[in-house]
């Protein structure tokens, strides 16, 4: 019955989608089961639906990386997805994880650890916060506790943020995001992280369970963190989530300082560029030390990728037939599936990681051959040549912020505000950048002019910034003036048409006149309340008495 139904369904799809070639063997595929990372779950769910049209049934349950690894050890799943390798030696207080069936690690999808924040200045949400990894390390170890800390001010071109407490939000459940963040802190800032980790965890290393400290709040799940930060009581909060969670509710994420001195967003292309320096250890685990300090100015430093743990022998519950399904699935998501990953807020895997993945697919029993790189439809294979360079205003040394504010204490006139970044955009070529000599069509300044849309935090939703990745931006036929200066200038103006400071004071003035009206109204109501009830009751009583007597 089930078999019949599946065949029927697959048949229908094959006809309608004209996927005859691959669907002819639809009934040959055996369903496979996996569990693990919630971090990668959205991407896997999308790939599962895509590959299902070819007859491969993938059952994936997002029970968390730790559970995924445990289930792999317990032989209850065919594959597991996790952000960190099997823990041997384990984290403090956890048992060692030693699977008794052979396995290989395979990169599946990349992403940047994004820091979503909720900060309001004069009734207006701050959308262009810039921080370095060091400042974040200090925030997440309890050393920097106020938003007006001079170290934060210095990174934001002298702009003083309000005197509010920083509420760092961490994950209370065992999370890959916590592991990725703590690994960054551990590898890059051991002098800050290790004393903190020693006192809270008893050992210096990465942890899936980020300790709570000082003012920190812990929340379950990325959606819990995103909900806390975006809630009305979340003013002053900052939390690490997958970029998609911030993007969905149009919340800003921190621009992080990279080795080249640019503050970048965790966009798909900047993460992919960073991961081109990812190295793979002899035991197939990832080594991101060179990713964190990648000298490319387009690097988002806190980038990482998650693994799939695949069996390399046909030990139960795995077998050769399942190997065929699994290999087909993996070959799909390493190539065309990576486009979907980008849409869902992840970053596509760059070439080096795709090749590493193909090498592992070959070890799966019953494997099918991987496609050649030339026919692999992965958008990030040539990310190094196609990714757009950062704007000059993103540089640490820039005196002009990306939304056109200058750090001067006096509010600039509108004309200077708009012209300042324009001139820098057009005249100053990115110093460390390799000139974009790429596919025909993107040699023009198209990516440059489309970039400010995403980079101008506040003017447009950050959804734009992910589309900045190479093929999408290059393919988009954007009619632009050859100089590229004019469109950039118009985009850099505040949508309200007024510079930042002026719009705030205007809003404040209209608020105060509204207040006066409300004060008067309330005074009138109070007066009515004091006077009316005795009068009404007096009238009512008199009427009742009159009707009783008369």
């Amino acid at each position: 019955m089930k078999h019949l139904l599946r065949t029927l369904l697959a048949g229908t799809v094959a006809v309608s989608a004209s996927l005859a070639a691959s669907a002819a063997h639809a009934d040959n595929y055996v369903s496979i089961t996996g569990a693990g990372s919630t971090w990668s779950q959205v991407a896997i769910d999308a790939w599962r639906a895509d590959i299902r049209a070819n007859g491969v049934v993938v059952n994936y349950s997002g029970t968390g990386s730790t559970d995924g690894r445990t289930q792999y050890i317990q032989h209850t799943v065919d594959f597991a997805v996790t952000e960190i390798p099997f823990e041997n030696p384990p984290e403090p207080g956890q048992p060692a994880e030693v699977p008794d069936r052979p396995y290989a690690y395979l990169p599946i999808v990349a992403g940047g650890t994004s820091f979503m924040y909720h900060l309001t200045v004069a009734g207006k949400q701050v959308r262009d916060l810039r921080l370095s990894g060091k400042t974040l390390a200090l925030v997440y170890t309890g050393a920097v506790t106020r938003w007006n800390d001079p170290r934060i001010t210095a990174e934001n071109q002298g702009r003083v943020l309000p005197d509010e407490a920083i509420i760092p939000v961490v994950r209370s459940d065992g999370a890959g995001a916590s592991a990725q963040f703590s690994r960054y802190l551990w590898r890059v800032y051991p002098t800050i992280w290790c004393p903190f980790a020693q006192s809270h965890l008893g050992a210096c290393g990465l942890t899936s369970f980020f300790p709570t400290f000082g003012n920190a709040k812990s929340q379950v799940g990325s959606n819990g963190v995103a909900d806390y930060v975006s809630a009305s009581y979340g003013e002053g909060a900052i939390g690490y989530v997958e970029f998609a969670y911030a993007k969905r509710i149009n919340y800003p994420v921190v621009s992080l300082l990279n080795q080249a001195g640019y503050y970048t967003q965790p966009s798909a292309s900047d993460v992919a560029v960073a991961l081109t320096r990812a190295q793979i250890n002899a035991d197939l685990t990832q080594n991101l030390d060179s990713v964190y300090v990648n000298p490319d100015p387009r690097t988002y430093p806190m980038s990482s990728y998650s693994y799939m743990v695949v069996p390399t022998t046909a030990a139960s519950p795995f077998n050769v037939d399942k190997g065929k399904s699994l290999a087909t699935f993996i070959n799909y998501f390493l190539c065309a599936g990576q486009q979907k990953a980008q849409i869902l807020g992840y970053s596509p895997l760059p070439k080096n990681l795709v090749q590493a993945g193909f090498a592992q697919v070959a070890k799966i029993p019953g494997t099918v051959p991987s496609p050649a790189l030339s026919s692999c439809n992965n958008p990030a294979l040539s990310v190094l040549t196609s990714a757009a360079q950062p704007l000059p205003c993103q540089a640490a040394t820039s005196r002009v912020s990306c939304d056109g504010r200058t750090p001067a204490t006096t509010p600039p006139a509108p004309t200077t505000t708009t012209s300042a970044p324009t001139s820098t955009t057009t005249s100053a070529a990115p110093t460390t950048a390799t000139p974009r000599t790429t596919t025909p069509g993107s040699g023009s300044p198209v990516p440059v002019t489309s970039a400010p849309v995403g980079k101008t935090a506040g003017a447009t939703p950050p959804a734009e910034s992910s589309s900045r990745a190479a093929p999408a931006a290059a393919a988009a036929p954007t009619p632009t003036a050859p100089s590229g200066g004019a469109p950039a200038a118009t985009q850099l103006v505040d949508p309200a048409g007024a510079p930042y400071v002026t719009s705030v004071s205007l809003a404040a003035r209209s608020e105060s006149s509204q207040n006066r009206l409300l004060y008067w109204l309330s005074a009138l109501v109070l007066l009515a309340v004091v006077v009316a009830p005795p009068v009404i009751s007096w009238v009512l009583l008199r009427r009742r008495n009159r009707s009783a007597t008369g």
Partner: protein
Amino acid sequence: MTNVPSARVRTSSVTPELVSSLVAAALGALALVWLLYERILPTSGMLGFWLCWYTAFLALYAVVVGLTQDRLAVSDRIAAVVFSTAGLVLFSVLLLVVGFVVDKGWDAVHHWNFFSETTALIGPDAPLDRGGIYAAAVGTLEQVALSTLISVPLGIATALYLNEVRGHLAGVVRTIVEAMTAIPSILAGLFVFAAVVLTLGFNRSGLAASLALAVEMLPIVARTSELVLRLVPNGLREASAALGASQWETVRRVVLPTARPSLVTAVLLGVARVVGETSPILLTAGFTNELNYDPLHGPQVSLPLFAFTEVRFPVDNAITRAFGAAAALLLLVLLLFTSARVIAGRPLGHVRRRERRRLARAFATATDPTRQVPTA
């Protein structure tokens, strides 16, 4: 003489005076608290504002009523307001929960395909006019039916042991059953996972989920059934025994028929308790987007698990689908409770008297103790 009773009647009905003093107190408190709380004092916030408003409202209302009435009437009015507010708050919380879920899920629910298709072929970001919760609904119905099949005979048997047999272990069993109602539901899932999936090597499936749900459901059915059986009057049992019936016959022909409508309620309460449980099935059912009619093999999704999975996705359509599934689940629970009320008929006391009369008549007229009533 005519004056006094008419005045008394008026205090309990709605008068212009009552309405105007209520409205005036409410508005006055609103203005006062807004001025004080939001403007003059350095405080702000929704919750604090409304709490202060309510306090000020009560105080003002007491003052306003006190202008014309004596102290007794004032306290009467205040008590009336406080108790109606309590009821109103409870009701509005319920309304808010249902309304919130239905509102968030409406975009998904109003598509017919939401109930007739599965999510096997669609990803998390697919439009809402494709895919739906059919597989999850099938899973929920099968798992709940299976767990009912397991736990109801066991639960009622336990209740009979506790209340009719009254064996040596009755006290111990009762304590265990009571303790079982208090265990966190995740433990039921962990227990079945450890015992059935890991030790016996049984795969994650609908049956494993049903076992976990049955563990959760058993103490509720047993406890409620025991309470229901306790309400069957002893006179019936004594009469039955006096007529020469054995204990088994007494239970089968007197006690159980008497308690039948209430036993149905007990079962439905148990069902309603487990139908929305997520944690026991989290570890035992596995997750799939495929339609799986077979609870014995392969992972099987259910409504709570589907909602729990989809709501965590950072994709709008997936979240809407999750709320749609939650709305469907709410509807299912509502349906169950409504049918429980209908089947159980009127409150227990009433049913008991009617049953007693019918049974008494049957015992009195018939020589053999049959359940059937010869006369209409």
